[in-house]
């Protein structure tokens, strides 16, 4: 039964749009799935390999701008951004990895944080290339209905899920976790830590870049403050995984559902809406204290608490 759970969920998601959901509901679903992709990508580098990144907006934005610039400068369809972002983002991740991966723990986190910010400033100032603060707009949308975007991001998410699962169950996965648990021990057991950290970074970056390129095509508009945002991209990527469950297969998906719905819900409350980051902060504190392994990771604990409450009432 449990073995077929993944297939059933995918089949369900594939059939979902056929019942005629509103455009708004489709938009929310697309965002949830897109954030699952980013979450799974972040989880690969930071959850499994232990290299906590505070700068995944750098890869998201690079993917988005790859698609955007192909459209605005070369007149190609923005969808070419998906394959093109593999090359651009990988090249970029190699440079970042060369600089940052020699740092450990909090130093790596701070370095990635600064890279996200540096890229935003670069994108704002290279006006001829990126359009600066005006951003890039795709004037003619590929489709009017959301259903095709939905299927594209769903396919991307399935692909990402399969890649992560294959990687984690192979030699790579064992090496990633070994590096997370103790880098010196891993090194002395014959693991080339620099090489495998770089592989984790590149995989994670490319998957995040895909989400960015999709975002450009789906939203039709990007600017540096949106796609290189520290609080709206980098931090949310971390929260999605922390809330859902670090180093679990389904954690990023569960986290994405909660975070996207929560953001929509809070934003719709009058007066309090603009303070949604405050609520995210409070949520993160609660999660870290009570469910350090996230909802999926601490599912047994949640179950116990629920069972306890039921017995008392």
């Amino acid at each position, binding site marked *: 039964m449990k073995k077929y759970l993944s297939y059933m969920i995918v089949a369900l998601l594939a059939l979902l749009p056929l019942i005629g959901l509103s455009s708004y509901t489709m938009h929310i679903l697309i965002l949830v799935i897109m954030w699952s992709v980013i979450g799974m990508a972040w989880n690969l580098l930071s959850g499994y390999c232990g290299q906590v990144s505070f700068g995944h907006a750098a890869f998201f934005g690079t993917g988005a701008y790859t698609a955007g610039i192909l459209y605005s400068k070369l007149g190609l369809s923005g969808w070419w951004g998906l394959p093109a972002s593999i090359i651009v983002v990988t090249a970029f991740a190699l440079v970042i990895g060369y600089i940052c991966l020699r740092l450990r723990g909090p130093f790596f986190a701070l370095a990635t944080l600064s890279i996200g910010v540096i890229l935003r400033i670069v994108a704002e100032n290279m006006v001829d290339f990126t359009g600066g603060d005006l951003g890039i707009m795709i004037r003619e949308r590929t489709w009017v209905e959301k259903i095709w975007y939905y299927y594209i991001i769903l396919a991307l998410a399935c692909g990402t899920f399969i890649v992560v699962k294959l990687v984690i169950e192979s030699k790579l996965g064992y090496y990633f976790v070994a590096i997370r648990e*103790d880098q010196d021990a891993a090194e*002395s057991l014959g693991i080339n830590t620099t090489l495998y950290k770089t592989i984790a970074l590149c995989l994670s970056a490319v998957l995040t870049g895909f989400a960015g390129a999709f975002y450009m095509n789906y939203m039709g508009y990007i600017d540096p403050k949106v796609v290189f945002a520290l609080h709206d991209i980098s931090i949310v990527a971390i929260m999605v995984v922390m809330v859902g469950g670090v180093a679990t297969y389904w954690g990023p998906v569960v986290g994405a559902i909660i975070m996207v719905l929560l953001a929509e819900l809070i934003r719709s409350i009058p007066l309090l809406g603009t303070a949604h980051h405050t609520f995210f902060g409070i949520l993160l504190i609660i999660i870290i204290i009570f469910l350090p392994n996230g909802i999926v990771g601490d599912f047994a604990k949640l179950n116990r608490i629920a069972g306890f409450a039921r017995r008392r009432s």
Partner: protein
Amino acid sequence: MSFLEVKKVSLFFGGLAAIKDISFSLAKGEILGLIGPNGAGKTTLFNVVNGFYKPSRGDVLFKDRSIAGLKPHRICRRGLARTFQVVKPLQRMSVHDNVIASAFLRARDKKQAEEVARDVLEFTGLFEDRDVISKGLPLGKRKRLEIARALATQPELLLLDESFAGLNASELDVSMGIIRQIKNRGITIMIIEHHMRVIMALSDRIVVLNYGEKIAEGAPQEIRNNAQVVEAYLGEAQSA
């Protein structure tokens, strides 16, 4: 021709010499004991041989090729594995996964890695505990897990850093039995140990360090009666 040769190795931290001009060699199949008071430079010497530190002067030859300055993972690939004095298990992994992760160094695929892991776990008597998350293991077994993990890389030379510290009498006997069996498998061993009973019983030869220098080398019997060694351990008052 020797199996491992440490040639006039020195390591300086700033102006301070952690180890000075140390030379000795190991023959294949031998067990070499490395003893000395706290801070004598034993673990530092392991760190040089294993590649964590590059020697400031001198050279380390393993199977007649220089390994000084190579990264630890390259040295491990050449067949030299070590354990840590302060155990470093991959905490949130099960015992089995810990060993599989190191078996991947030479295994072709996951199936083979699992076979090697099973073999090594049975050999070190940890097979019953294979599903335990290693954070939860008692110290004695964590020390043995260190050995198991090192063995899973299928080394020719094994460096054991205080694998017996903190063990009770029965655990000591189990571990000593394991070390003897490792030797019977043809693996050369260099061992740091404070337990004199263990080191005297296991070692073919002993090298003694004090303040970063080699003060004696010889068979266990000779070391036991060496005045300089006794002085280093017990202080001058003893010689009076």
